[in-house]
């Protein structure tokens, strides 16, 4: 039980990452794949932010305690929070461009199921050779 208590966050992060990875591999719909990509990225953020937690630490913002002095107790590590802020913003940018490409695919092929798109491509390639 103590191994679970000290590593639970990391294992849950890996579980969420694997759920996202399964969605990207197994799902045929492109929008489902985009959502699963977002879930995968969130698992990575959970992994990093879990590394930043300190027992007894508090939010990484300086504040004054009752005596008017800066609270000197342990603050959580701000560096992974900062890196994950950048990563979240990059993730939403990737998601926006992915959605735009999916909308264009729908207009071009009439479908957003991966196997139907591949069949249409194969038919077009076979038709152009014949």
């Amino acid at each position, binding site marked *: 039980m103590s191994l679970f208590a000290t590593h639970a966050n990391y294992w849950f992060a890996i579980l969420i990452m694997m759920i996202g990875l399964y969605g990207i591999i197994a799902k045929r719909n492109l929008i489902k794949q985009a959502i699963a990509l977002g879930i995968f990225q969130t698992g990575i953020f959970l992994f990093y932010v879990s590394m930043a937690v300190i027992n007894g630490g508090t939010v990484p*913002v300086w504040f004054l305690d009752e005596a008017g002095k800066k609270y000197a107790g342990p603050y959580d590590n701000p560096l992974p929070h900062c890196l994950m802020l950048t990563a979240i*913003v990059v993730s939403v940018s990737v998601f*926006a461009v992915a*959605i735009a490409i999916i909308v*264009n695919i729908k*207009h*071009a*092929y009439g479908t957003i199921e991966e196997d139907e798109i591949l069949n249409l*491509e194969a038919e077009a390639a076979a038709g152009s050779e014949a």
Partner: protein
Amino acid sequence: MKEQLVLRVVAKCLIPPILIFGCYIITHGELSPGGGFQGGIVLASAFILHALIHGRATLHQAFPRNLWATIATIGALIFAGVGTYSLLRGGQFLDYGWIVPSHPAKGEPWGMTLVEYGVGLTVCSVMVLIYDMISEPAEDDPTVDEDSA
């Protein structure tokens, strides 16, 4: 959606506080949780709410699409401009100590504040632009060449 009375009135009551709250988050990014990204997205949500309720035409009348694109680039240029200013003053790129050379410790909050304003501008305008592009009605002639599958 502007025929619905409740939606219209609630949106009219909510949009000014959302705008003020967004500016508050950007400007108080150093003193409390927040910063450029969060404040920019909250600011953008006020414009998106207005566009949802009153239609995209009213948003285009006040803020055409090219204006958002210009503001987005101006935000990124503010960030790079702060860095180049300290480069021109003789220091390294993005070294805020050179902004107020007499007292470098004061230059640091100034640099951070200006940089967060730039980031907030860019994020707000890009989010409104993204919403604008994705909510265009599907026309009969899509962006496809005639010889694709």
